[in-house]
C-alpha cells in the first residue's frame, strides 16, 4: 500500500461504525449509496481501479444532495441532517489525498457519533459510543503516523481511551447541570408518536401496530392487579360531532386524599413524545415535581417531554366496591354545545334510557345494547363519515376501544349523565427480571368515566362488554403479566427481558442523572447544601486536584529524563551577577566573546572572570577535565560578587 491508500481502510472503518446506529432511520438508498461508495474504495485498494477525479466527485456530491432534497423535500430536521452527513461521509474517502482532508473526515466522524446519541441514550448506545470513539481515534492516530502498520495505532487508541475514562467519569459527575436547556429547542429525532390530542374514531386503532415503547413503570411494592392497569393520560370532555376534545383546566388539587389507603407509588420512565402529557396509573392523586395535577386527574408537565423523563407518581386504585367519602365535585359545565349531529344516536339514547332515573341502570342498558346487537371488537374498524356515531351504532357495528368509549360517553351525555372519555393505555408486559412493566404504544386504550352523585366519577370500560379478554391479552397478542410465568418463556424472550432490565437500570440512573441527583451526590459527599455554591465548589476542587495530579505526573516524568545541568546553572548565575552590574551577555556572544567584553569594560574583574570562563570552557570542552572541577567552578561562581564600581 502506498502512502495515501494506507489511510483508506481505517477511515472507512471509522465512518461505517459511526453511521451504523443511524441505519434504521436512514432511507434505503442512502445505505446502498454508502455501501457502494465504501465498497468501491476498498475494492479499489486491491485492484487499483481509478478513483473519481474532481469533476466526478462534484457530480456525485450534487447527485447525493439532489437525492436528499427529493427524499426530505424542504424538511430540515435531524433525519435530513444525518442523511446529509451519511451521503457526504460516503464520498469523502475519495478525496483523501492530503492530510487536511483526512483530518477533516475524522473530525466529521466524531460529529456523526454524537448525533446518534440524540436518538437514544440506552446502555447499548453508550457502550457503542466507546467502540465508535475507539475506532475513530485509531484512524486519527493512523493518519498522523506517516508510516507503519495499523496495529500500533489501534493499541495506542485503546490506551489513550482507557486512560481518559477516569477523567470522563469525574467530569460527568461534577460538571454543573442546568435545570433547563440553554435554548428551548427540541431534541432532534426523539419522540415520534405520542398519544393523540384529539380522539376521533380510528385515532387509537391507528396505534395498534406501533410496537414502540410508550413508557415503563416500576413499582416499589407489589404489582397492582391486571384489572387495575389503566394508565391515565388525558381526559376528553367535549364532543364536536365527529371527535372528542380535551378539556383540561389545570387546578391545584394535589393536597387531597394523601392519607387514604390504597395509594400506589410507582416510577414511570416516559419516552419522549413532544407533548406535555404524563401518564400514571388511574387515578393519580399527586403531581411529581415539574408537573401539575389537573381537575380531570391527569398529569401535565410544565415542559414538553422532549427527552426521556423519569418521575414518581402516586395513584389511588379504586375497586368497584370502593366508595369515596367525599365525591368529586363537578368543575365544568356540560359539554354538548351542538345538538344537531348524530340524530339517530340521540334517539337511540333516549329510547335506552326511558323509564329509569338511575345512572347505573342507564349504563347497564347501553352496555347491554352493545352485547346484544352483534357489535364486534376489531383492530381495523371501517372508516366513518360525517355522523360517525350514527354510522357506528346502526351500520358498521365494528369498532375498537375508542368507538365503544366514545359511543357510551355520548349516549350517557344525551341522557344527561355526565360522562367523559379517558385516553391512556391498558395493560403492560412484565419483565420478570426487572419487576417493571413495559407499556407499548399499541396498548393505547380509551374508556369512560361517568359521574354518579354518590360515588363521584366511576370508571366504565365498554370494550370489556364486547371483548372480555382484553384485560388479559394485549392488542398485539402478548399476554399481560399475570398470564406468563418466568419459566414458560423461551430462551430468547428471557434474554431479551434480561437485557431490557439491565438497560432500564442503567437508564434510570444515567438519563435521570441531572441537577437534583448531582446535588444529592454532592451532599452525601458533604459539600454545601446552599444551592449552586456546593456544585461550583466541588467542580473547582476537582479541577484543582486534576491540576495537582497533572503537575505531579509531569514532575515524576521529568525526573526520569534528566536533572538540570549544574554547570549551565553556574554559568547562568555568573552571567546574572555580571548583568546586575550592567554587563549583559547578548545571546549571540559566546563565553570567550563575553569575556573580552567584560575585560574591556571592567579590567579590574578581568582575572576572576577569565578564571571562571576558563573553567567553564574546560568543563565543557576538555576531554581530560577532572570531575572535581565542576564543584570548584560552582563554588567559585558563588563567591564571585562583582562590585558595581571599579576599584572597590
Amino acid at each position, binding site marked *: 500500500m502506498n502512502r495515501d491508500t494506507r489511510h483508506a481502510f481505517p477511515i472507512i472503518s471509522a465512518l461505517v461504525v459511526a453511521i451504523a446506529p443511524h441505519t434504521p432511520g436512514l432511507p434505503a438508498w442512502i445505505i446502498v449509496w454508502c455501501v457502494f461508495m465504501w465498497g468501491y474504495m476498498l475494492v479499489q485498494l486491491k485492484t487499483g481501479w481509478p478513483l473519481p477525479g474532481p469533476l466526478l466527485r462534484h457530480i456525485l456530491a450534487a447527485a447525493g444532495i439532489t437525492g436528499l432534497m427529493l427524499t426530505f423535500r424542504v424538511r430540515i430536521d435531524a433525519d435530513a441532517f444525518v442523511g446529509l452527513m451519511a451521503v457526504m461521509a460516503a464520498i469523502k474517502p475519495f478525496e483523501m489525498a492530503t*492530510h*487536511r482532508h483526512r*483530518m*477533516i473526515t475524522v*473530525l466529521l466522524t*466524531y*460529529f456523526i*457519533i*454524537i448525533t446518534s*446519541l*440524540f436518538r437514544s*441514550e440506552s446502555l447499548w*448506545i*453508550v457502550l457503542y*459510543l*466507546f467502540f465508535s*470513539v475507539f475506532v475513530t*481515534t485509531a484512524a*486519527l*492516530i493512523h*493518519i*498522523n*503516523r*506517516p*508510516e*507503519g502498520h495499523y496495529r500500533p495505532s489501534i493499541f*495506542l487508541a485503546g490506551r*489513550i*481511551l482507557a*486512560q*481518559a*475514562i477516569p*477523567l*470522563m467519569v469525574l*467530569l*460527568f459527575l461534577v*460538571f454543573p*447541570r*442546568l435545570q*433547563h*436547556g*440553554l*435554548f428551548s*429547542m427540541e*431534541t432532534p429525532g426523539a419522540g415520534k408518536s405520542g398519544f393523540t390530542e384529539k380522539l376521533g374514531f380510528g385515532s387509537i386503532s391507528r396505534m395498534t401496530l406501533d410496537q414502540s415503547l410508550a413508557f415503563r413503570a416500576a413499582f416499589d411494592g407489589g404489582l397492582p392487579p391486571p384489572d387495575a392497569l389503566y394508565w391515565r393520560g388525558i381526559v376528553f370532555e367535549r364532543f364536536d360531532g365527529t371527535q372528542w376534545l380535551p378539556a383540561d383546566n389545570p387546578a391545584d388539587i394535589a393536597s387531597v386524599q394523601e392519607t387514604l389507603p390504597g395509594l400506589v407509588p410507582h416510577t414511570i420512565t416516559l419516552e419522549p413524545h413532544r407533548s406535555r402529557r404524563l401518564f400514571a396509573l388511574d387515578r393519580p392523586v399527586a403531581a411529581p415535581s415539574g408537573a401539575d395535577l389537573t381537575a380531570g386527574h391527569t398529569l401535565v408537565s410544565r415542559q414538553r417531554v*422532549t*427527552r426521556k423523563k423519569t418521575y414518581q407518581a402516586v395513584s389511588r386504585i379504586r375497586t368497584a366496591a370502593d366508595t369515596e367519602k367525599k365525591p368529586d365535585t363537578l368543575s365544568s359545565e356540560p359539554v354538548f354545545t351542538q345538538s344537531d349531529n348524530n340524530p339517530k344516536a340521540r334517539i337511540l339514547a333516549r329510547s335506552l334510557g326511558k323509564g329509569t332515573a338511575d345512572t347505573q341502570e342507564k349504563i347497564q342498558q347501553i352496555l347491554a345494547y352493545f352485547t346484544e346487537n352483534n357489535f364486534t371488537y376489531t383492530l381495523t374498524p371501517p372508516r366513518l363519515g360525517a355522523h360517525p356515531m350514527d354510522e357506528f351504532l346502526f351500520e358498521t357495528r365494528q369498532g375498537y376501544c375508542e368507538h365503544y368509549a366514545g359511543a357510551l360517553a355520548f349516549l350517557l351525555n344525551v341522557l344527561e349523565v355526565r360522562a367523559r372519555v379517558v385516553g391512556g393505555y391498558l395493560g403492560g408486559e412484565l419483565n420478570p427480571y426487572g419487576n417493571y412493566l413495559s407499556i407499548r404504544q399499541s396498548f393505547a386504550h380509551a374508556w369512560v368515566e361517568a359521574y354518579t352523585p354518590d360515588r363521584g366519577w366511576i370508571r366504565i370500560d365498554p370494550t370489556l362488554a364486547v371483548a372480555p379478554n382484553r384485560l388479559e391479552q394485549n392488542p398485539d397478542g402478548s399476554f399481560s403479566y399475570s398470564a406468563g410465568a418466568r419459566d414458560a418463556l423461551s430462551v430468547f424472550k428471557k434474554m431479551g427481558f434480561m437485557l431490557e432490565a439491565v438497560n432500564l437500570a442503567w437508564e434510570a440512573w*444515567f*438519563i435521570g*442523572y*441531572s441537577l437534583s441527583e448531582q446535588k444529592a451526590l454532592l451532599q452525601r459527599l458533604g459539600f454545601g447544601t446552599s444551592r449552586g455554591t456546593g456544585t461550583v465548589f466541588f467542580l473547582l476542587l476537582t479541577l484543582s486536584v486534576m491540576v495537582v495530579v497533572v503537575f505531579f*505526573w*509531569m514532575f515524576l*516524568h*521529568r525526573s526520569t*529524563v*534528566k536533572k538540570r545541568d549544574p554547570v549551565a546553572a553556574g554559568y547562568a548565575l555568573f552571567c546574572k551577577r555580571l548583568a546586575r552590574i550592567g554587563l549583559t551577555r547578548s545571546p549571540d556572544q559566546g563565553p570567550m566573546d563575553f569575556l573580552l567584553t567584560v575585560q574591556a569594560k571592567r579590567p579590574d574583574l578581568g582575572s576572576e572572570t577569565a578564571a571562571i570562563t576558563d573553567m567553564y570552557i574546560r568543563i565543557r570542552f576538555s576531554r581530560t577535565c577532572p570531575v572535581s572541577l565542576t564543584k570548584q567552578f560552582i563554588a567559585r561562581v558563588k563567591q564571585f560578587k562583582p562590585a558595581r564600581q571599579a576599584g572597590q
Partner: protein
Amino acid sequence: MVLTRKQILIRPTRHGLLFLAILGAMMAGSINYNNNAGFILVFLLGGMALISLFYSLMNLTGMDILFVSARPVFAGQTTAFTIQVQAKNQERVAVHFALPGQTGLWATICKNETKTLEIPAETTKRGVFTPGPLTLFSVFPFGFFRLRTRVFLHMTCLVYPVPVKGPAGSGRGNSGTGGSADTRHAGPDDFQGLSMYQPGHDVGRIAWKAVSRGQGIFIKDFIARADHFTMLDFDAFASRDTEYRLSRLCSMVLAADNRNRSFGLKLPHTLIVPGRGQAHKKKCLRALALFSRKEAV
C-alpha cells in the same frame, strides 16, 4: 544533547482548534438537551485530547541528538548535516527535523534505536555556513497539538565558492619554472615501473592487467616532475571583484586537480605551495572558502 520538557513549545494546530470548536458545539448541544450521553462523549474526547498531549511530550522528550558532520559543498548547493538521533526508551513517531528556512525531513525511530539522519540545507554563499538551531516538531498522536523544540547543536558546514569558468590563461600569472629533477613526487607523468599495492594507494593507479593475469595487485609508479606546476594567483585577474576572483580560482583548482596537475595558490596573506592530490585540493578550496572570513572551522 538530550531533549527536556522545558525546551518544548506547545501550540494547537488548526485541526486542534477545529476539534475544539466541534467539542464546544457538542458541549452546547449536550447542555441544551441535558443529554448525558453527549456529556460522556464530550468529556471522553476532551480527556483523550488532554492525555494525547502527554503522549506528544513523551514522543519528543528524552531523545538524544548529536551532530556528526556536514559535507562541504559549493555555494548554492544543498549540503546535508549528518546527525545521530538516539530514541532511547521509547519509539519516536513522525518527528520532523528541519533547519531554519530549509525543507526538512520526517523520521520515525524505533525504541532503543539510533538513527543517522541527513538534514538537508541549501547554502547561499561561501564561508562557514551555520544553519542555526535544528528545529524538531511533531503533532503525533492526534494532530491537535504541535510540539516544537529547537536544538542548538553548533553545527557548521564549509561552503566553497561557486566555481566559475572563464577565459583560459587569465589566471596563469606565474607559470612554474625552475625546479630540479630532485624534487620528485609520486605522480602520473612518467611511467617508472610497478610496485606492490598497499592500502591507501590510489585505486586509479592499480595495474589491472597484472591483476587480470593473476599476478597480484600492483600499482603503476610514475614520476612527476615538480617543475611543471601552475601558480594560481588571486591578483592575476582583470576583474576587481573578490568573489568573482575566488570563483574563478575555485574553478581553476578543480580543473587542475582534474587533470592531476601540480598547482599552488596565492592569495593575499596566504600562500599554498604547489602540490596535488585530494588533501591539497581541499586545502586550497578551504582557503578560498575562508578568504577574508573571520570564522574558523
